[in-house]
């Protein structure tokens, strides 16, 4: 197998995720798209990890970092959904375009 197979898969997933983040206006969907981006990164990490592992058996960095990313993703979703809930409670809507207090 080529390394690039996985890297391309990661790249495609990443770009789909970016599209989702930019094109969706439902906050929950935006969060889901962010999960896509994180998964794309994880595929890359594990692929690189496997690549290095083939050279050096003691090198587990790729997987370890993938695990860290999963943990951080869990934290991010928790806090993110809490914020979404709070917005919903205050505005009865989770349209990200409604939250524009920074408007100049």
């Amino acid at each position, binding site marked *: 197998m080529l*390394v690039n197979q996985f890297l391309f898969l990661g790249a495609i997933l*990443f*770009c789909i995720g970016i599209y989702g983040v930019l094109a969706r206006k*439902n906050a929950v*969907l935006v969060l889901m798209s962010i999960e896509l981006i994180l998964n794309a990164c994880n595929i890359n990490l594990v692929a690189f990890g496997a690549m290095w592992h*083939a050279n050096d058996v003691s090198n587990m960095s790729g997987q370890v970092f993938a*695990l860290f990313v999963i943990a951080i993703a869990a934290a991010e979703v928790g806090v993110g959904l809490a914020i979404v809930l709070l917005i919903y409670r205050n505005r009865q809507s989770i349209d990200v*375009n409604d939250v524009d207090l920074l408007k100049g």
Partner: protein
Amino acid sequence: MLALLVAQNIAFYVIAALIVFGAIRVVTCKNLMHAALWLVVVLAGVAAQYILLAAEFVAVTQVLVYLGAIIVLFLFGIMLTRAKTGTDEDLDNGKIPKIGAGVIGVAMLGLLGYSLWDGFGDREFGDLLVQRTAQVSDSIFSTYLLPFEVISVLLLAALIGAIVLARRD
């Protein structure tokens, strides 16, 4: 050996196609609940790819954490914000932002594809050795002990933060 490689490649492409299709559905479909379910497909596919990469522990963790916990969180989020059941036309931005997003996504994909091909070309994995869980744990609890602790503190902070944010008072 060759047969195995062919089988792996076939599996990869089938799963990859599923992932890409699922991901596109996640960002385009008009039903919030369906989007969440398509996300399940994507995440499960990614877990399968980890198996192909001989990373068992990450695959299992992916299933446990993402499919088990995060998806449930999303479903709760969808329900608590009283989303419309069924089709909802009001999930996307207008046409211009969507086109902009598409352009940015395609441009980024082109750039990434070019650099990846430029950087790795047809580099092979070599022999994929199974990366055993024991090795992962050895690595986490020796080399990466400090980041591990930091992440546990981060999780705790996120937990507290989520509670503080979401509770009614």
